[in-house]
């Protein structure tokens, strides 16, 4: 009985992920095994990091009486295998009709974020999990490849892993050995690719279920001596408040932790929200704000024990290799002046403030003297309270807390949203100045604005949406 149709695979990759090589392997494996096959692609401009698709069709019968006819385009509900190096690319194939109940889907589980997702000032990312769940239910079968876990993050092998999973899925009639031969025949990075290939074969065999979702958050416990304070808060809030206390103890000292608790207590006293949502929101944002990153803090973070080893790990440096680390600092007027008390801050030259001007440092943190310099700066914690930035930040924190407390007496939801508006206190330099100015404008004349809570709520909501959006979006 002759086969009714070719077996079709649609492969979705991003430019530079090696989709072309993968298709070469498939074509070679088909040739070796004696099945008629055809491949085609649309590289075009997509080779520059855009989405690229490849279509591979194989007729599952050797030496058919007539040559089978292959197509240049995938047809909807006519794809046996959708293989993607990125989960939303598999999802997009589904949107276009190329994943249906007849389709086996093999996809990398890790997201490669698109530009549109990256440029949002808030969280513009599309989560992988719902896409994978949708694919899993809509398709005939799903083989998920946790690529980073499998390859230790070495992306050049991803296409080999995918090839292995394709070979192992059994969708095509050629043997796994024919595929191994195809990799050997190509003669490029054979050992590495074969290693990836075997991992893919194994994954197709395992068909591991999608892992449980985790939030991936790591909470630090409270510093010693503050356990009793923590017990005064509902159990649900203890991890985040404990983490906040630990952050501030590390940032400054126990007195600073107590200042935080004093602030938080005044909010808690007014909090009638369900589960004390308001207190939780304020705790999280107040701690982040109170640990604002001035030059002392940055020096502290850059000289953290273990940082140099972490970076060695990123480069996969063996013990005998030498690490040369340069930190990119550009202390602007605000950072320098912020370090000094306000009666001295005026002395720091303002500079032109133009793009590309100012003082650029490529600081050699991996050298003993470079490290020592930062360490010295990090040890100046004691001076922080005298600095002009400290005064300004805490004045702003005070205005924000006043607004929250005032709102809490009128409308609890408004108070929670006001707490969230602290997102504007972020970044460095110009970004921070502009954000703080935006927040100031929002809080300006708060008491009068509270006269119309509905209008104010709309305004605060709007401000938060704006804070998360792409600030360049209005350019379109």
């Amino acid at each position, binding site marked *: 009985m002759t086969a009714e149709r070719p077996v079709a695979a649609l492969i979705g990759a991003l430019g530079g992920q090696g989709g072309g090589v993968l298709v070469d392997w498939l074509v070679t494996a088909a*040739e070796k095994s004696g099945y008629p096959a055809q491949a085609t692609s649309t590289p075009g401009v997509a080779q520059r990091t855009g989405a690229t698709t490849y279509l591979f069709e194989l007729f599952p019968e050797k030496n058919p009486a007539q040559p089978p006819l292959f197509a*240049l*385009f995938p047809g909807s509900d006519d794809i046996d295998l959708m293989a993607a190096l990125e989960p939303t690319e598999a999802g997009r194939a589904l949107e276009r009709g190329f994943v249906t109940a007849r389709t086996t889907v093999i996809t990398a589980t890790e997201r490669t974020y698109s530009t549109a*997702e990256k440029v949002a000032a808030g969280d513009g990312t599309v989560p992988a999990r719902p896409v994978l769940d949708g694919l899993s239910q809509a398709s005939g079968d799903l083989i998920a490849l946790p690529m980073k876990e499998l390859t230790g993050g070495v992306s050049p092998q991803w296409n080999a892993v995918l090839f292995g999973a394709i070979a192992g899925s059994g969708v095509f009639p050629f043997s796994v050995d024919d595929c191994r031969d195809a990799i050997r025949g190509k003669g490029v990075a054979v050992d590495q690719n074969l290693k990836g290939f075997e991992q893919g074969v194994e994954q197709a065999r395992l068909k591991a279920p999608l892992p449980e979702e985790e939030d991936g958050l790591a909470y630090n416990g409270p510093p010693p001596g503050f356990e009793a304070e923590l017990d005064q808060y509902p159990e649900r809030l203890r991890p985040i408040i404990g983490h906040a206390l630990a952050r501030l103890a590390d940032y400054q000292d126990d007195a600073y932790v107590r200042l935080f608790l004093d602030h938080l207590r005044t909010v808690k006293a007014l909090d009638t929200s369900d589960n004390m949502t308001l207190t939780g929101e304020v705790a999280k944002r107040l701690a982040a704000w109170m640990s604002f990153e001035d030059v002392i803090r940055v020096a502290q973070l850059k000289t953290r024990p273990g940082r140099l080893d972490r970076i060695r790990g990123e480069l996969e440096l063996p013990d*005998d290799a030498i690490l040369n680390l*340069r930190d*990119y600092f550009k202390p602007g007027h605000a950072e320098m002046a912020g370090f000094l008390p306000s009666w001295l801050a005026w002395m720091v030259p303002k500079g032109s403030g133009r793009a590309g001007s100012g003082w650029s440092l490529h600081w050699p943190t991996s050298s003993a003297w470079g490290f020592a310099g930062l360490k010295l700066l990090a040890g100046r914690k004691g001076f922080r309270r005298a600095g002009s930035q400290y005064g300004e930040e805490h004045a702003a924190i005070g205005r924000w807390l006043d607004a929250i407390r005032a709102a809490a007496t009128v409308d609890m939801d408004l108070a929670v949203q006001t707490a969230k508006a602290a997102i504007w206190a972020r970044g*460095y330099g110009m970004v921070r100045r502009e954000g703080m100015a935006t927040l100031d404008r929002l809080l300006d004349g708060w008491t009068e604005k509270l006269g119309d809570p509905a209008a104010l709520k709309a305004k605060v909501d709007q401000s938060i949406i704006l804070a998360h959006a792409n600030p*360049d979006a209005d350019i379109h």
Partner: protein
Amino acid sequence: MDGGAAIPVKKVAVGDRSFAEEVRKLQMGAGEEFHGETILCVTKALLQAGVSYIGGYPGAPMSHLIDVMADAKNEILDPMGIQFEQSASEAAAASLLSASIHYPMRGAVTWKSVVGTNVASDAISNLASTGVTGGSLILIGEDYGEGSSIMQERTHAFAMKSSLPLIDPRYDMEKIVDLTERAFEMSEVSNLPVFFQLRIRACHMTGSFVAKDNKVPRYSTRNPVPRAEYDMTKIVLPPASYAHEKHKFEARLPAIREYVRENDINEIFPGAGGPFGIITQGGAYSMVIRALRQLGLADAFGNTEVPIMVLNVVYPLVPEQITEFMTARESVLVVEEGNPNFIETQIAEYAHRARIDCAIHGKDVLPMAGEYTVDTVRAGVAEYMSDFAPEPYAATAGSRYQATRGAVDTANEILRDHMPEPLPARPPSFCTGCPERPIFAAMKLLMRERGPMHVSMDIGCNLFGSLPPFHVGNTVLGYGLSLASGTMVGPALDQPVIAVMGDGGFWHNGVSSGAINAQWNNYDAVLVILENGYAAATGHQRLPSSGETPVGAASEVTIENALKGLGVKWIKRVDSYDLPQTINALRDALDARGSQLRVVISDNECMLARQRRERPQKAQAMKEGRAVTQERFGVDPEVCTGDHSCMRLNGCPSLSLKHSADPLKETPIATVEDSCVACGHCGEVAHAAQLCPSFYRAEGLFNAGPLRRMAHAVNKRLLSMMGAYE
């Protein structure tokens, strides 16, 4: 700039990009099975047809032909006496065909269409008028539909207005190769150059055919034409030009029609007969067959009961063939991609004149324009079959179509339940480490300082600057035309004319239409040239300023010399990765109002090419135990506050996001992925825009000498004493 000083010729060492395997295949002899992508199979067909010369301008999807030929000098071109040129533009490539006007030499030229055809149009029109003696083939990559990088037009109209035959072959490798060879005969019997069109996917399609021996051309560098010929009737001047036009319609096109008819170039698959049928372009045939198979009306080998006529030559049509097919049919469906629907309207005209009572369907059931994919064709064919085909075809097609729709809708509903929002699209962008990225960061920063400016863009990778995250670039008009296209805009906005152009665009047309025009007219203009050393977007072909000829000999053409020759005095060359230098040069150029044309050359080699060359070198050095450094950038997760301002000035694929483990961080933080090539742009942006101190550059030194290692040990001990390690 001081005039007259010698400018050192910049030479890019072209990366290890070998086409030796392809060149070997092109030497296959009779009876061997040739397997490869269509574009390579067609190249082989040219050699089998005995071409004397080949030329072209690289552009996807035809670049591969040029790449392979440029590598084939010793093995194929020289021994066979074939001349080859990678031309400076499509106009230059088309001009090569002039050799076939007087002399019986076969020649082939190639480019991306419709854009390349536009550039070449002057030469093609003249050639079409004069006519040719030797077979002349214009191979065009029809860049229409998905993956295209150009405006959506087709070449069909061009073929019609110049009366040039247009071959649109059915996508079967034997057929494609056969028709490529026959195209030369068609050209010779009709004295017309012939267009041979391949769509993007068809160019990249793999397949096989049985090879023939390559044919040594009759006339070549090894066997010159006996003497130069003169014939006044071949000059495009009155009265000859009127005679040319008459000849086209009285002799040349009829000769083509006769050839097509006599040689069964168009194919008829009669099926089981019946009152219906499909007339399709050759290039759409495989879509029609796949659609029929999915609708239950064809098998996997293309056997079908539906009568089909395949037009492998879509211009000129052969009216008798078509009226014969339509006679005794109540209706036909014309499957013709794009608009205007020239074939459908001509067929309607034939039916009308012949008084044939056959309903003609086409654009009423198929999309008005756009690429015809399997899905779009299937929808149209299903509608035609349901409404006009006899039973059982109508019922089968209708129910199968609904079944497919149902399966697709079900899958989409399931996905939407989990993920209500549509998934993100991925427009193309600059590659990791691209040297063209910083100039757009610089422009965006300057616009923050002085408000929006109108920037005219050019063809090539540079055009990605007008996409997110940069949003720099207001118009694009053509290759090498950015400067010219800005001339009426700058003064109207009271700003200098500001144009961006790649080195490819500069040499293609920019030097004449842009630089000379601006200089001669004394325009207040700033031209930014992105010199990356190659025609990078089309696959790293060499350029006049690459320091090498297309086949690798030394060349001394430079951009500065060309500009100085025109009298341009204000030229600054900047290191593209040096952002402050770039910003300052741009600022100076913009502020030097009234000093004619100012040119900023942003200089650095295409990172793809550089990596292709340097990676194997480093791997080799590492293997041999020589000192090697490995660099990358990084972001300290604790320092990044997650506002993503760095992303909005960068867009690097390796600068990405990750979710922070710190519960106090609300938004994802920046991260540099392993694919980083340490161009340093992220660090430079953080500096120039005073964003944050999160970025660092980490360099690993492998196989260091004993002195360095000793210093390292001391350093490590000191660091350890300061608590640098856990």
